[in-house]
């Protein structure tokens, strides 16, 4: 499961936001993109994931496991996405947030329920299927959001400053949890951050944008 960018650039109104970027992320690796705020780190992730808003145009290619996904809409790329906010869907229970992410190919009420319960258990959220996401702690929300991304079975994952809203103690715990899961599953991950500690903990290549 690898992610490859070939000469990827995003421009707005004819002005390129950053120099064309080429890089490869091997399965289970976490590549970190660093740079000051406003340089277009989040826009880069939007381009890779297929979320660019109107007014932005993109050149270059995005390959997932060797397959060119550049022309596909976001929902067909199988590239997961996590932000600094957990962004759990506020109208769904914690378990249903995960069920929303679970591929439809997994059929049967009991089977799907069991898959969600298993994912909740991995995140230390046993018995919280019916909970209102608003009642979770910050760390619990972050873990639920990761599980929602993972149950969708992504081939690659994009992290947009995933730890910047967590307090210091929680941050290192969450880093271990997140990177552990990503390595274990062999998901190619691209992270943007401006915290050098994130990059150090990720242990992969660091690209300056």
């Amino acid at each position, binding site marked *: 499961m690898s992610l490859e960018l070939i000469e990827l650039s995003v421009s707005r109104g004819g002005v390129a936001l950053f120099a064309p970027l080429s890089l490869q992320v091997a399965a289970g690796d976490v590549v970190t993109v660093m740079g000051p705020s406003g340089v277009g780190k989040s826009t880069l992730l*939007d381009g890779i*994931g*297929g*979320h660019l*808003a*109107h*007014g932005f145009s993109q050149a270059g290619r995005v390959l997932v496991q060797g397959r060119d996904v550049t022309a596909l*809409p*976001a*929902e*067909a790329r*199988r*590239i*997961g*996405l*996590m*932000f600094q*906010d957990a*962004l759990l*869907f*506020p*109208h769904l*229970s914690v378990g249903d947030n995960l069920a*929303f*992410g679970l*591929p439809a190919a997994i059929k049967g009420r009991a089977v799907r329920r069991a898959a969600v319960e298993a994912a909740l258990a991995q995140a230390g959220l046993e018995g919280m299927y019916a909970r*209102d*996401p*608003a*009642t979770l702690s910050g760390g619990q929300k972050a873990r639920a*959001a990761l599980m*929602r*991304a993972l*149950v*969708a079975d*992504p081939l690659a994952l*994009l992290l947009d400053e995933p730890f910047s809203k967590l307090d210091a103690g929680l941050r290192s715990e969450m880093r271990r949890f997140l990177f552990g899961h990503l390595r274990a599953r062999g998901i190619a991950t691209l992270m943007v951050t401006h915290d050098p500690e994130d990059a150090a903990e990720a242990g992969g290549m660091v690209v300056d944008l």
Partner: protein
Amino acid sequence: MSRSRGAVLGIVLLGLIAPIAVGLAETARAAFGVLPALGLWEWSLEPWRMLLAQPGFGTSLRLSLVTGLGSTVISLALAVGFCAAAPGRMRWLAPFLAVPHAAMAVGLAFVLAPSGWIARALAPVMGWVQPPDVASVHDGWGLALMLGLVVKELPFLLLVMASGLSQLPVARQIAVGRAMGYGPGVAWIKLILPQLWPLIRLPVWVVLAYGLSVVDMAIILGPSNPPTLAVAVLRWFNAADVAMILPASVGALLQAGLVVGSILALWGAEGLLRVVGRWWLRRGGRGVSWAPGLHMARLGVWALMGLAAVALASLLVWSLTWRWSYPMLWPEGWSDRIWMSAVWAKALINTLILAGVTVGLSMALAVFWLEAEEGLPRAPWAEALIYLPLLMPQIGFLYGLNVVFLRAGLSGGYLAVIWAQALFVFPYVMIALSEPWRAMDARLLRVGAAVGAGRWQRLIALRLPMLLRPILTAAAIGVAVSVAQYLPTLFLGAGRIATLTTEAVTLSSGSDRRVIGVYASLQAALPFAAYGLAALIPAWWHRNRRDLRGGGV
């Protein structure tokens, strides 16, 4: 994506703008003597001569200008004073906004009339045994009409201002102003009002256009002989002598011109005030002496809303009255006779059908529009067009539109009335829904796409349920607008589709107050019920979802 947006714009243009243009064109043709239905094919100025020869035409014109401009200026001044004196929550005003104009007018007439509650309360003091011989309703100056308009427009302006104020850092800027020695009220007027005005300009124009061309409220409260221009035009259109359609068309055009001219004048006044205001600001007066004036505005708003509450209560009291002789303050006998007779059932059912279908269609179109613009630049010109039906006087194009519908064989049916009502329901629904829709955190939808949810699934499973509260609020506003429609129902229904509003207005001229009370109570109750459901359903649905209980995402 741009194709679906093209489709939406096409529907809006054809469905909303074309009828207005076509209606205006038909009216304009008749105004210059071309009325094929009467065998008139020659262009002429005869209709204009006929109009000028109408007795009371000049008075009608003056009355429209005075009541329309007067009520707008008074409500605006009171609203500004109220906000400057006591910025705060305005949700208590929503019920007064929800009540249809006609129901409020009937209630006010019950309270203000020589035999109304006020006169009854004064009777012991003044020694009145008979209702005093004062024209406190239908007065020749249009004062009762102005009062009615102010009572109805004030909550609208206050709520619009509250919504605008929520986008400005009011408290901090007032604090800065006060630290420099400005009184809080003057700091508000000098610092906040200039920033607020661009956000409320269009709603103020809508209020002005409405006040200048209102028909239902003018029939119930306004002078009757001669009436305001819009009512006079309606009478001419409905006159037994069909030739009166010619001057009526001229009057309808003039009415449109009156609105356009008044809006331009207001725009000019705005420019002038900007210059004067800057001069005033630079003088640096601390304006501490303003406090009493602002306090008066606040009292005025409270008094008017108190009057509105009494007016609404009087609807219900009258509807349940058996016997209530003058000068008793309270009915001597009660009866649910008219409620039980269910004479109102047909009108209620018609009203519910029309509201259901128009609001359903308008909501679907609004959702379609907002969804189609996702990921595309906004189209300000299209958004401005949505306001057109609210700025255009109804009497200006509805007659012409009916002519076109007649030719197409559509007039007099539900379809025509639904279409005509949707012209006014859609803009309000769109205005109410677009802000919360665009304010939703787009990253939630990106997360949805990243786990594989397609466009429809994102809309149905994520966006709509998250926006349940604003969606139902917009629908409730739509119901209130639909229920209140008088002229569109009357014209396009060819008088054959009776709703609570058309019945209430028709009955208001001299019918049994108990019967009018029932119709007007029902008319007021429907929007209340809609607003109630719009609050209760999301509260129940999201009862275990803390982040959605506050409202909006």
